[in-house]
């Protein structure tokens, strides 16, 4: 029996609840995944900073009892970088939407991956801009509808995992809101990883993506998520058959930025 149903209220900012997300929005499930991971990590909440972008997902920090830095659209990782460099002892986790991460914030994302700074990025990928009302995201599948692609998107979507890998992130994983057990486990691994870690989470936006693409309610969308993906261990010889693989794609120890910087300072420190 999975270890589930814990009382996670201590991690939550109770007066901010109920949260702002729509009925059945996967973002709430990601938030639960985070809370579960915090419990497993036994993190002191005053040492944890959640850095949010702008979007439905970016609001995550408001619902936790940790430090919250709610930034600007797309720039969460740039703020996080300054903070982490100044306070390497703090645990810094960025919660970002797919638009946030890969549209306006694409550059900060690939640079954070490249620098290998010890920050964890949780990318809530719902294939759409939720907050602003259902516009195309750079993750919207070709042909899918949104209010700005009423006839179906012409653009091939980004694969966030591939982008993170190419940009140099040292921990890269993908999960979904369907995988309630795997998700917190991956977050735990990502936070423990000493370097830049990306966890892409496929999550449902029933309000826009679901409705505009006739995928049904949140319950149906979870099934859709399951059918769209394959845990890596289950990938057969026939390959992915168009499904997106899940799990950890890279876990590599490489020089971490703040550690290297500290060493540089130590070398430079003025002798008395």
């Amino acid at each position, binding site marked *: 029996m999975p270890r589930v*149903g814990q*009382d996670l209220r201590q991690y939550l900012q109770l007066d901010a*609840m109920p*949260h702002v997300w729509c009925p*059945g929005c996967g*973002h709430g*499930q990601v*938030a*639960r995944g985070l809370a579960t991971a915090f419990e497993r990590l036994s993190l002191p909440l005053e040492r944890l900073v959640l850095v949010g972008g702008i979007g439905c997902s970016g609001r995550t920090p408001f619902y936790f009892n940790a430090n919250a830095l709610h930034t600007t659209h797309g720039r969460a990782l740039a703020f996080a970088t300054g903070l982490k460099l100044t306070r390497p002892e703090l645990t810094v986790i960025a919660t970002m939407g797919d638009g946030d991460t890969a549209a306006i914030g694409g550059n900060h994302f690939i640079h954070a991956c490249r620098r290998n700074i010890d920050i964890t990025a949780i990318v809530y990928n719902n294939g759409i801009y939720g907050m602003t009302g259902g516009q195309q995201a750079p993750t919207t599948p070709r042909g899918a509808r949104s209010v700005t692609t009423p006839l179906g998107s012409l653009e091939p979507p980004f694969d966030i995992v591939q982008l993170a890998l190419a940009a140099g992130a040292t921990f890269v994983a993908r999960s979904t809101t369907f995988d309630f057990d795997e998700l917190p486990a991956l977050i735990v691994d990502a936070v423990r990883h000493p370097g830049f870690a990306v966890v892409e989470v496929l999550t449902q936006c029933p309000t826009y993506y679901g409705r505009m693409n006739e995928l049904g309610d949140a319950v149906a969308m979870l099934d859709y998520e399951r059918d769209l993906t394959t845990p890596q261990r289950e990938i057969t010889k026939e390959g992915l058959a168009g499904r997106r693989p899940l799990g950890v794609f890279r876990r590599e120890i490489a020089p971490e930025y703040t550690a290297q910087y500290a060493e540089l300072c130590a070398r430079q420190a003025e002798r008395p």
Partner: protein
Amino acid sequence: MIPGFARYAQGAAALHVNRAWCKGCNLCIAACPSGILALDADQRIAVGDIGRCIFCGLCSVRCPDFVFVLERPSLGSVEARA
């Protein structure tokens, strides 16, 4: 009791439910293997026959709104941490 949560007991175990946070998305209902969950007329969660609950916790992991807390001996008392 957890403030704001209703407690549905079955022996030493119990299901705590915060109706005020429920948004009526049906995710828990679809997940519950015992079929004891449903929405009421206000489109909020209602617990049916708690005697049939198997405390699998699937409702809690599926719920995006932190509506459920399970109380089982293995998890420790909720009060102790409330």
